[in-house]
């Protein structure tokens, strides 16, 4: 028996009305008003960043204490036992309110690692971490990618060697978001190099404060450092922190990745959301004197059409989910298009601005487009490259044959591998 959606919505609104105020939407997204940031990645100084994380934790705690910390989770760990639809509805309604952005906790930790722990960890570990995560106390990060294992995640080389009741872990992880704020990390490690690559991996929960864990920020070309390298040197991980079976870690990792869900955004005031609004882009067209420029209008018209159609696709997906259907391939198509559309916006905007985009003259809405421009290459790479996404669409949705594989049956030890780049 699951709660009626209308009743749930009523409860959610009552909670939010009591603990938060509505977001001011008037001045948001209007050309010329507010700050002219366009970046997807922020470049906050560390004290500002820490304050934001603390506020996120506090809000998550409030949600948890009022029964909205883990909407789909089982009651025994503080969850509500409701459906994905309820979860999406909550997100949609919450976006109307001015509350701290809990993305630092939820995008990876609560959205992906929490469900993995639920599915694969021992009971005592679930008890130890799940309530703590969903109440904002514990932040989790994902220790998956390595310098030599990017798109080919199964190529991980970080080793875990058993020594009695503990495992000793040595290696290097990269592109780890929120590592600097995390208390635990879910790591995929090589435990049997004599097996083919997918078969010799084990998943562990690593205590990020354990000796040997060294987190270093990765500087990205857009200027900020939202990602990290994590060096693991003789880190001791107790066996009770293993997730799933020994050498069964690939399946555990798949659970994690399958839980990746694009968050539903309503009217948020994030810079990237604003940059995709037709009205905002219209303001840019006027401000740069291209109002009557036929070539610019044609490009903008095509772009606005694609942005709006992608939005419709999202709306229809939501409608279908509310009606109980399974999600289709819209999510992959959506991600593909999102990345391409933002790239087009970034280039069109800087083209319209012209030379003022080259140097910061202080004029509103000119140089600031570089934030989006310099972030844009990442959209088609991070979270799954465009090429991999197209492989997935081609193979799993359209049924096209895979490329002949030369490495999925060979023992990992015998594979030709890249070394760590200097």
């Amino acid at each position, binding site marked *: 028996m699951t709660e009626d959606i209308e009743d749930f919505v009523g409860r959610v609104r009552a909670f939010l009305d009591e603990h938060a105020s509505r977001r001011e939407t008037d001045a948001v997204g209007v050309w010329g008003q507010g700050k002219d940031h366009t970046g997807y990645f922020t470049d906050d100084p560390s004290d500002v960043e820490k304050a934001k994380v603390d506020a996120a934790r506090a809000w998550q705690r409030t949600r948890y204490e009022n029964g909205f910390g883990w909407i789909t989770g089982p009651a025994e760990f503080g969850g509500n036992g409701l459906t994905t639809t309820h979860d999406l509805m909550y997100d949609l309604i919450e976006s109307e309110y001015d509350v701290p952005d809990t993305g630092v906790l939820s995008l990876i930790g609560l959205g992906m690692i929490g469900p993995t722990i639920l599915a694969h960890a021992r009971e005592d570990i679930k008890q130890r971490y799940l309530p703590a995560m969903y109440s904002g106390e514990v932040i989790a990060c994902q220790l998956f990618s390595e310098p030599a294992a990017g798109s080919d995640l199964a190529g991980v080389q970080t080793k875990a060697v058993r020594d009695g009741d503990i495992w000793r872990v040595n290696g290097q992880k990269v592109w780890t978001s929120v590592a600097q704020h995390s208390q635990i990390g879910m790591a995929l490690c090589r435990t049997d190099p004599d097996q083919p690559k997918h078969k010799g991996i084990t998943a562990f929960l690593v205590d990020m404060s354990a000796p040997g864990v060294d987190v270093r920020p990765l500087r990205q*070309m857009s200027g900020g450092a939202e990602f990290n390298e994590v060096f693991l040197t003789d880190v001791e991980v107790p066996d009770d922190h293993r997730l799933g079976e020994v050498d069964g870690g690939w399946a555990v990792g798949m659970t994690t990745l399958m839980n990746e869900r694009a968050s539903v955004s309503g009217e948020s005031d994030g810079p990237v959301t604003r940059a995709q609004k037709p009205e905002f882009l219209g303001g840019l067209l006027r401000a740069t004197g291209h109002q009557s420029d036929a070539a610019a209008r044609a490009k903008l018209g095509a772009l606005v059409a694609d942005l709006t159609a992608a939005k419709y696709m999202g709306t229809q997906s939501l409608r279908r989910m509310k009606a109980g259907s399974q999600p289709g391939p819209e999510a992959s198509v959506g991600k593909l298009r999102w990345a391409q559309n933002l790239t087009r916006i970034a280039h069109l905007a800087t083209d319209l601005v012209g030379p003022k985009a080259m140097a910061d003259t202080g004029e509103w809405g000119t140089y600031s487009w570089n934030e989006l421009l310099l972030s844009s290459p990442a959209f088609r790479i991070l979270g799954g490259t465009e090429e991999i996404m197209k492989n997935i669409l081609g193979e799993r949705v359209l049924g096209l044959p895979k490329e002949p594989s030369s*490495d999925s049956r060979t023992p990992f030890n015998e594979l030709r591998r890249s070394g760590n780049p200097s």
Partner: protein
Amino acid sequence: MTEYEEHRGLDAQTLQEVAASLREVFADPATVDDALEELGWNEIAELDPATTTTLLFDTAGHTLATTRLLDDVVRKATGHAGPVAYAAGELVVALGPVDAGADLLVVGQECRTVTAGAVSAVTGFDTGGDWHVIEVGAGSATEPTAGPDILALARRALSAEINGMCRAALGLAAQHTSTREQYGRYLATFQAVRHALAESYAAIELSRVTLEAAWVSDDPVTASTVAKHQAGASQATVMQRTVHVLGAMGLTLESDMHRYVSRAAALDTLLGDHNELAAELGAMLLHGGPADPVASI
């Protein structure tokens, strides 16, 4: 021999030696001017201005050297003794510091000598450069002091520098994808990657030949506009693709890739970015300008 090779004042062997010497010159960016003087650059350049200018700026671009060689070229061609600056849209931009109050030659649609106003270093997109923005009062405009051929010359030099940067970016991308492995094979064995590299190569080749043709054209002013437009358009194509195949590595500050991206974009904006020049060429065609200034059919 191609039509262009016939025009060369230096034979292939000598050119190879010159290219090698230039690579040595630019090996140390701090001593480029002295090294060029030691090499006897002025004498060499006189033997074949077209090929040597292209080689010089291509090497500068390839090594991301921050120099004021373009100023030297403009001064030599105009006889102007003071500092030089360049129109970038509404801005007037110099490659290094300029004294306020100096006699400044501004290269643009019309080349004029003006009195430099306030000068400010810019925290720009290209952090490796030494860009400065100069205020030029409306009242200080004078009669044009140099013809459109100077603008054309500067555009050709900039095109060569942009092309050099694109070559370097492609080199970096090719090297990365030929050594990085995923799924048990080098990235460069995947078609999607190969095709991105091939498209970049084609774009660079297109720029290169367009520039070569601009040096020998009967209408160098228009042809140089075409060359600068092409270099700018190609850099947009090349940088997008090469950054992409570098994957996440290319997104870091540690990688050199972002330096090529930003400087190529910055140079694109000097003396007309590729969009402005497309509009300029379009307007020229609509008013009955020559349809084929680059190739004679």
